[in-house]
């Protein structure tokens, strides 16, 4: 930590706001010290607030906790930060003070304006286990920790960006729409995609789905069909006839011209129109849509789908003028357009550069595809066709030629199959449709007949040398290896180029003709002129083009609004997929959606080759989502929140340094993980639960409507307790007694007998420890109420087919025999274990832990609460198992020690110099 940076000053830092931490903080605050109380959970209260009642008084835990919880955030001398982690603590200097680094975790909800209405929680589409109900029931990714939470403010469990969403170049919330589909909210899912682009149906068919390559489920049975899910919602929307439902700002009086109506131009127009701009798109071709409409074949992307998407843009009032090539950008500005965006893509074919290229029967790939889309006469039937190139345009051209009746279609590519730039699915599908491949051949000359028409393609065989700048192995001609491919039609698809000659006077161009605006703002040297998409980057793909359109619109809006041209990419970092998978102990098999592509080796028409997902398939497929980032980014919480701007899904954690004269560690304890006693079946037998789970079932804010067993929802009639689960047990490395398991079990016994008067309660124990004021009386009272206490450790538990459980034990005080007893429900009285977090807070390693890894109190007899570091103290169960009453007493004692420490330090300080009168 940087000691030279000014940090906020406190007298005391209290780590942990359970009952011990709150008590120490409040007492020190009462004494006049300035206290910072830091709690990692969204609410103060620790474990106590989650309990039903406390022993031996049977006071309601909530009733007696909440006043202290409220005081801890209202006390004038106590500053409480919830959802905040203390990351490390070190010495601040030579004066004995401490400097701590704290991290305020992003809540994604503004604490000041959140009203605690829980509408966000109700709207949230992600269900996760509720840790505040011991995982017995679901909560939502947006949630308030529990009904008595202090502060009662929502928090959104958002652990970054889901990999699918993070990867999308178009900025589409992939996880969000998958989550909405899972919930059956198809229109909302459609609107979420519309938030990024109007091209929902197009991307649902023709996108190469980089999201799917990142899907965490891909490392299990297979990726989610994220693209096809997008198609599903587009089709659902089209069939529903519903309005778009997109918010559009009122007209702002400004005009923007967009040159080009491909995915970049359409998306930019869509976004600008939503912001209130009057947008006109100028398109050179007779139909709008660029490559979507004039190149991608209908068997992959039906024309009516593109037209529907373009209609989305028109629905916002965008004017699309076709047959309008633009040659003078300055004239547009002079005509009153406040900004102009060039998004003309790469409409030209790169030439083959070989002799004979001008023969009749040589055509560029894009021109060939465009002619077919515009129903222009194309003579293919019966001819042998060679397509030169290995990209997606080459695959499209080859497959289109097959459909037009070519006698044969051969793709000639100068590298090998693995070096082909075409998407592997396109190449595989082309092959399945009867397209042949000639690898490692490069065209040398287009041969002609006497009439000047194509008669063949003379090629040179290539060998692959060292990788070039693209990372692919460089093709090198093999001398004397010439061969001829017989053909009557050659389609050149070796690349595409922009057509920017007319813009070069205003916008800087690269030697290859692409424009060179600022890569972030997309602004050219002329402030009102922007350029984006393939005309800048060369031919890419639809999602990147869409992303460029979004960026251009954002920057144009910023420019025209005279705001800083930033703030476009607000993605949180992608979550770690290994960490996502580690959240579960195992995964059930959930088979991926079957490939729905139907291909013929001799295709005859342009019918769409991929079938849509059925509704059932879509729901099942969406249900496989792992919710990698937990929050899906579906934005339902934002829509539901009544306070404008309260929820910000792009918020970031904030780090802060603070100085304090003393530190109190009140980090509490951990509960024993009951599955470490496999003979008791916890985690395998659904009707074996822990004491904390029973406390939740007994609490007024219980997860179920009453006390039900988790196996089937039955009200249990025979309930057994197994004491000392994980305590006084060398087999799990914990010889210590946990001190309060006996008493909380007795408390639960009494509460159960009150709630379920007909239930039989049996406690299997080693010995009951009820040493405390009125504790033994409490025990006797439970016996008098009818609870049965059986001495003898339970050896094992087995499960019956009906979910009942058989406990095997030795009846030490009765028959002396081995007994099998059957119950509806078994409660494991789990013990406590140390919380290991405090040791990690001190990187210098000078905080000593005891033999059991609790925070050591070296002078425990005379100075309980003091640790191995002068000025660092411990309160409550962080130094060993304590019940609530003992924790409070210990915390108050620690507060006194802290006060003494601070006063001693103050006495050592030099007197402030007198200020001259």
């Amino acid at each position, binding site marked *: 930590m940087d000691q030279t940076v000014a940090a906020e000053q406190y007298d005391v830092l209290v780590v942990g706001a359970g009952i011990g931490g709150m008590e120490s903080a409040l007492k020190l605050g009462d004494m006049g010290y300035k206290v910072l109380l830091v709690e990692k959970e969204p609410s103060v209260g620790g474990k106590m607030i989650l309990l039903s009642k406390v022993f031996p008084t049977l006071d309601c835990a909530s009733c007696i906790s909440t006043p202290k919880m409220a005081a801890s955030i209202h006390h004038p001398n106590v500053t409480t930060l919830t959802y905040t982690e203390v990351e490390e603590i070190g010495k601040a200097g030579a004066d004995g003070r401490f400097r701590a680094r704290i991290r305020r975790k992003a809540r994604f909800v503004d604490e000041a304006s959140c009203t605690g209405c829980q509408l966000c929680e*109700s709207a949230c*589409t*992600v*269900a*996760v*286990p509720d840790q505040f109900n011991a*995982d*017995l*029931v*679901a909560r*939502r990714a947006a949630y308030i920790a529990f009904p008595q939470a202090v502060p009662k403010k929502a928090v959104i469990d958002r652990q970054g960006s889901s990999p699918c969403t993070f990867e999308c170049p178009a900025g589409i919330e992939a996880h969000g729409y998958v*989550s909405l589909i*899972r*919930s*059956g*909210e*198809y229109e909302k899912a459609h609107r979420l995609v519309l938030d990024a682009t109007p091209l929902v149906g197009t991307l649902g068919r023709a996108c190469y789905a980089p999201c799917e390559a990142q899907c965490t489920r891909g490392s299990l049975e297979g990726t989610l069909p994220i693209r096809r899910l997008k198609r599903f919602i587009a089709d659902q929307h089209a069939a529903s006839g519903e309005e778009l439902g997109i918010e559009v700002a009122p007209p702002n009086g400004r005009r923007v011209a967009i040159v080009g109506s491909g995915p970049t131009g359409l998306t930019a127009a869509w976004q600008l129109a939503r912001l209130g701009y009057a947008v006109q798109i100028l398109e050179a071709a007779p139909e709008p849509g660029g490559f979507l409409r004039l190149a991608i074949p209908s068997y992959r992307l039906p024309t009516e789908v593109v037209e529907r998407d373009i209609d989305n843009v028109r629905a916002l009032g965008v004017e699309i003028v076709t047959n309008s090539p633009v040659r003078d950008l300055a004239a547009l500005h002079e005509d009153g357009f406040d900004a102009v965006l060039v998004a003309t893509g790469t409409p030209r074919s790169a030439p083959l550069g070989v002799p004979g290229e001008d023969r009749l029967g040589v055509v560029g790939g894009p021109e060939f595809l465009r002619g077919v889309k515009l129903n222009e006469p194309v003579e293919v039937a019966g001819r042998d066709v060679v397509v030169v190139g290995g990209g997606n345009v080459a695959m499209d051209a080859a497959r289109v030629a097959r459909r037009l009746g070519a006698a044969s279609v051969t793709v000639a590519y100068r590298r090998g199959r693995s070096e082909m730039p075409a998407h592997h699915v396109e190449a595989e599908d082309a092959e399945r449709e009867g397209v042949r491949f000639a690898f490692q051949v490069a065209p040398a000359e287009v041969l002609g007949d006497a009439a000047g028409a194509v008669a063949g393609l003379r090629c040179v065989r290539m060998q692959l040398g060292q990788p070039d700048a693209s990372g692919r192995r460089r093709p090198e001609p093999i001398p004397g290896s010439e061969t001829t491919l017989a053909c009557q039609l050659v389609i050149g698809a070796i690349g595409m180029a922009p057509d920017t000659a007319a813009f070069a006077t205003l916008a800087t161009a690269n030697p290859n003709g692409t424009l060179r605006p600022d890569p972030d703002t997309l602004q050219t040297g002329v402030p009102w002129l922007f350029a984006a998409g393939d005309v800048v980057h060369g031919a890419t793909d639809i999602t990147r083009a869409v992303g460029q359109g979004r960026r251009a619109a954002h920057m144009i809006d910023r420019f025209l609004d005279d705001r800083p041209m930033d703030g476009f990419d607000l993605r949180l970092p992608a979550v770690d997929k290994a960490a996502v998978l580690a*959240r*579960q*102990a*195992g*995964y*059930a098999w959930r088979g991926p959606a079957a490939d729905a592509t139907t291909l013929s080796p001799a295709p005859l028409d342009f019918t769409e080759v991929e079938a849509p997902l059925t509704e059932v398939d879509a*729901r*099942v497929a*969406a*249900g496989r*989502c*792992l*919710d990698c980032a937990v929050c899906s980014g579906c934005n339902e919480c934002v829509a539901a929140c009544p306070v404008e701007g309260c929820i910000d899904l792009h918020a970031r954690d904030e780090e802060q340094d603070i100085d304090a004269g003393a530190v109190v560690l009140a980090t509490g304890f951990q509960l024993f993980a009951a599955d470490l006693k496999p003979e008791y079946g916890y*985690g*395998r*037998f*659904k009707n074996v639960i822990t004491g904390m789970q029973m406390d939740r079932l007994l609490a007024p804010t219980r*997860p*179920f*409507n*009453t006390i*039900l067993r*988790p*196996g*089937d*929802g*039955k*009200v*249990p*009639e025979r309930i057994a307790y197994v004491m000392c689960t994980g305590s006084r047990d060398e087999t799990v490395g914990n010889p210590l007694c946990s001190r309060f398991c006996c008493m909380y079990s007795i408390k639960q016994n009494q509460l159960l007998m009150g709630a379920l008067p007909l239930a039989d309660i049996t406690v299997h124990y080693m010995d009951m420890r009820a040493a405390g004021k009125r504790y033994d009386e409490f025990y006797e009272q439970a016996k008098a109420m009818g609870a049965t206490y059986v001495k003898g450790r339970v050896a094992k538990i087995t*499960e019956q*087919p009906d*979910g009942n459980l058989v406990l095997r034990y030795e009846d030490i005080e009765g028959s002396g025999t081995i007994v099998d007893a059957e119950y509806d429900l078994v409660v494991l009285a789990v013990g406590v274990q140390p919380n290991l977090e405090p040791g990690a807070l001190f990187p210098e390693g000078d905080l000593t832990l005891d033999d059991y890894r609790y925070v050591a109190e070296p002078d425990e007899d005379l100075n309980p609460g003091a640790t191995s570091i002068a000025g660092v103290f411990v309160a409550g169960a962080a130094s060993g198992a304590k019940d609530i009453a003992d924790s409070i007493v210990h915390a108050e004692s620690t507060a006194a020690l802290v006060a003494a420490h601070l006063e001693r330090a103050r006495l050592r300080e030099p007197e402030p110099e007198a200020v001259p009168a």
Partner: protein
Amino acid sequence: MTANRDPREVIREEPVMRTRILEAVQAEARTVPDIAAAIGVPAHEALVWVMGMRRYGYLREIKGSDADGYFRYEPAGRVAR
């Protein structure tokens, strides 16, 4: 015997199961085992979804359990798609 899946996995599926569960109780209120049988899932998984749906307003219990110790649940008004 119960087949166990990770609780997180079961809970995650609640949104997918809502429609089926609401359909199962549409004609008459049912117990958790009856709902589980109707939709073909283990009872302990049905319980998780029923309780999640109860918490968020899709289902409610009918007061008083029947002789076998099971509550019956009915639609509470919130619609699942």
